[in-house]
């Protein structure tokens, strides 16, 4: 098999991963809807235990205790709801991650280098990291409620990658020939994948908070009652964002060292550097907001939304719109 053919095999595998993740997205959505139905049936039975738990929750939950939330209703151990959809979703997600991994590896062999040097490859690796982080976290604790959103975002990224950013596998210019390509870019994409999962948790936190506060337009989104309480979503988001922030800090430091080697300066306010700095400051703001009275909870979650928007912009717009030293999309 020639390298060009191997490159085509890689592309086919990525299409396969996209199909698999799309099935997972549908199955996760069905599962969320099913859980909602089960919840409605069980609601009356759960009332007594829920009331007890509410009491316990009210003692410690601080601000959120002021308005009794349906969070406690979500907590009773779900005995045997029909979770066939969840099974399908998890299998197809795992399959999608596997196909993507093989697709990335074959891409690397076809190009004869680390397979993350242009935007198409960024979308592959970023999606893979997001899905893998989801699968790993799900082994530690049940976060299947995030599945629809993570696979959905991964499917969007891959669709964009295959249709907009795709270029054939090839080598890289001298400026990219460095082990820092593996470290700096690899860690940057990993951070983006981690931020993606944290972002989904924060969005759910915001939606759930709005619904609990009686937001009109979320009134029919019953599935939101099936996701954990905002405080727990915030805790999950924080843990992921903390990892993401450390990775991003490393990305910037590694990038500076590399820039010093390749371009003769460690920091030059190139558009990519500007936006990496902005992302770092926004997430630093998020960490501080969490500990500032009146800024934790919902406002902190908005920082995550803004921060993730900057991450996405940094991976797309900055490469395509601005003409900087980091314009490695490979597209003209």
């Amino acid at each position: 098999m020639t390298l060009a053919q191997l490159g085509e095999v890689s592309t086919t595998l990525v299409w396969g991963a996209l199909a698999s993740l799309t099935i997972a997205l549908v199955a996760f959505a069905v599962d969320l809807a099913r859980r909602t139905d089960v919840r409605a049936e069980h609601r009356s039975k759960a009332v007594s235990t829920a009331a007890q738990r509410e009491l316990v929750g009210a003692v410690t939950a601080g601000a959120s205790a002021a308005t009794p939330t349906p969070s406690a209703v979500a907590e009773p151990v779900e005995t045997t709801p029909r979770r066939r959809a969840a099974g399908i979703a998890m299998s197809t997600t795992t399959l999608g991650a596997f196909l993507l991994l093989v697709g990335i590896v074959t891409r690397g062999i076809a190009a004869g280098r680390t397979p993350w040097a242009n935007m198409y490859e960024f979308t592959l690796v970023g999606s893979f990291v997001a899905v893998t982080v989801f699968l790993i976290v799900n082994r530690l604790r049940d976060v299947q409620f995030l599945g629809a959103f993570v696979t959905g975002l991964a499917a969007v990224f891959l669709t964009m990658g295959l249709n907009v950013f795709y270029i054939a596998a090839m080598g890289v210019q001298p400026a990219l020939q460095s082990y820092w390509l593996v470290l700096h870019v690899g860690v940057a994409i990993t951070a983006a994948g981690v931020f993606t999962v944290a972002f989904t948790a924060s969005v759910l936190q915001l939606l759930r908070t709005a619904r609990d506060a009686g937001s009109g337009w979320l009134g029919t989104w019953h599935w939101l009652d099936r996701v954990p309480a905002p405080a727990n979503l915030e805790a999950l988001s924080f843990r992921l964002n903390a990892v993401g922030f450390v990775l991003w800090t490393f990305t910037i430091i590694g990038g500076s060292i590399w820039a010093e080697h390749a371009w003769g300066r460690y920091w030059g306010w190139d558009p990519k550097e500007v936006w990496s700095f902005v992302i770092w400051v926004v997430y630093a703001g998020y960490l501080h907001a969490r500990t500032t009275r009146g800024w934790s909870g919902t406002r902190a979650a908005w920082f995550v939304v803004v921060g993730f928007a900057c991450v996405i912009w940094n991976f797309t717009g900055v490469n395509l719109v601005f003409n900087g030293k980091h314009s490695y999309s490979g597209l003209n």
Partner: protein
Amino acid sequence: MSGLTRKNTRYAPAGIDDAMTSDPGEAPEPQLPTLGARGWARWTWRQLTSMRVALLLLMLLAVAAVPGSVLPQRGQDPAKVLTYLGEHPTSGKWLDRLGLFGVYTSPWFSAIYLLLFVSLIGCILPRVAAHLRNLRGRPPRTPSRFARFPALASGTSTASPDDVADAVAAALRRRRLFRVDVGAEPAKDARPEIRTVAAERGYLRETGNLVFHIALVGLLISVASGQLLHYRGQALVTQGRGFANAVVDYDTFDKGAWFRPESLSPFSLTLDDFSSEFATDAVAFAQSRDFTASVTVTPAGGGTTSQHTIKVNHPLEIDGAKIYLQGNGFAPEVTVKDADGQVAFAGRVPFIPEDTMYTSRGVIKVPDVSAGLEQIGLTGYFLPTAQIDDDGSARSVFPQPTNPMLVLQVWTGDLGLDDGVPQNVYQLDTANMTAVTGDDGVRAQVIVKPGETVDLPDGLGTLTLGADVPRYVALDLRYDPSLAWVLTFALLALAGLGVSLFTPRRRVWLRTWALPDGGTHVELAGLARGDDTGLQGEVDRAFAAVPGLRPPPDDDADNYQEDPR
């Protein structure tokens, strides 16, 4: 079951600043009218060092950085700024007044980050003092009631309270993470004596937090000192030639305010050879793959010369300065004889690549013509692999010199070199020159290949292109003594950040006493800074160390539960 939803979750964030229990900026309400100067100063200082203002400054900093990526910046691309000002004369003038073409050196951007650092220092200093006291302190006394704590365990043991307390204390000490105190509360009224254990771990969390913030201050100071002490010289060197590390030998030279010429180490460097490689496959045709400059370095004051290579990503380091390969191109060897047959110009002329195929633009200025003749200027392109299309336009189709050609237009008149005003060597000032046209009124074009001599139009003379086309490299020499400090503080910040975010800060307490009907009651409680999923596990591990535990009765009345995992 949903593992995420834990019991008794406190909605307490666990960010890097969670050790701060009271926010100095928020605690006292400002009393406006009676403050006086000192009061105002104190109030301002409190506001500035409050978390809320720090947060505001962080948000401002993020927003303020954005325009620098949208508008061209003088520090990065001054030519683009001029183009922008030309295209937007009115709005450009205002943007310029606001400093938007030099965002990162503008007063408002500097004000934001300097205020942020003042706020940071004001916040960190008291915390360093508090943390130093804490480090010598003992774990807080065992509370008398455990019910309010998020992690609990209790049971009955056959061992005595003393043995239980000792065993748990020993287990906590064994892992070397905890600072442990064993104590007792004397019997009072009907209550028996209670043995207690108080343990705390995770002092490193705040240490990491403080290291992170102090390292950021160090980083800022290092970067600033680098700005003051650095120098940077750029030189264009053709094959077989060289330059000495002296201010006059550079084409451009930048320096910081505290630069001293002594910090230039007087070595010299010669470019022996330059080679480049480009992809030839269809997919990535003509993409660059490798650039290598081979150089010989003669150390200061003579001595043994040494051979080195400089590549992109592999700068050459000499005496603390680094030499980077920043660009390359062709410098054809051109000889121009004037109408009298005298050599009016002979030398290498660097042509600047304008595209990936190295279609390179250059200017040849011929001022030293024989008396009575007009000066000559030639502008045009060097094409490494020339292809002339049917319409007569020439372009390069590959970056390597497989079919090199020089395509020039000819001007005559006054080059303007005698005015004493410095000129850009890559631009021809045609204000006092006229383009030479052929008989048909079309501009005359001179096309010459290496080794050829052609006549210039209008009998102006001849032009010879040397048989070999030498390569040139653009070298960038930088000296910045702060680099090691910048890296050290950056890595310290990273380490501090990781430690502060991932070190759990936990307290574990034990209370145990003898029950009137025999046996020993044991209860443990845990408390963590922020939310900490491992807290219940910590309490459970300590509980497992209790000797002689009786199997727990099936008791639904327990108002707390084990962690579901």
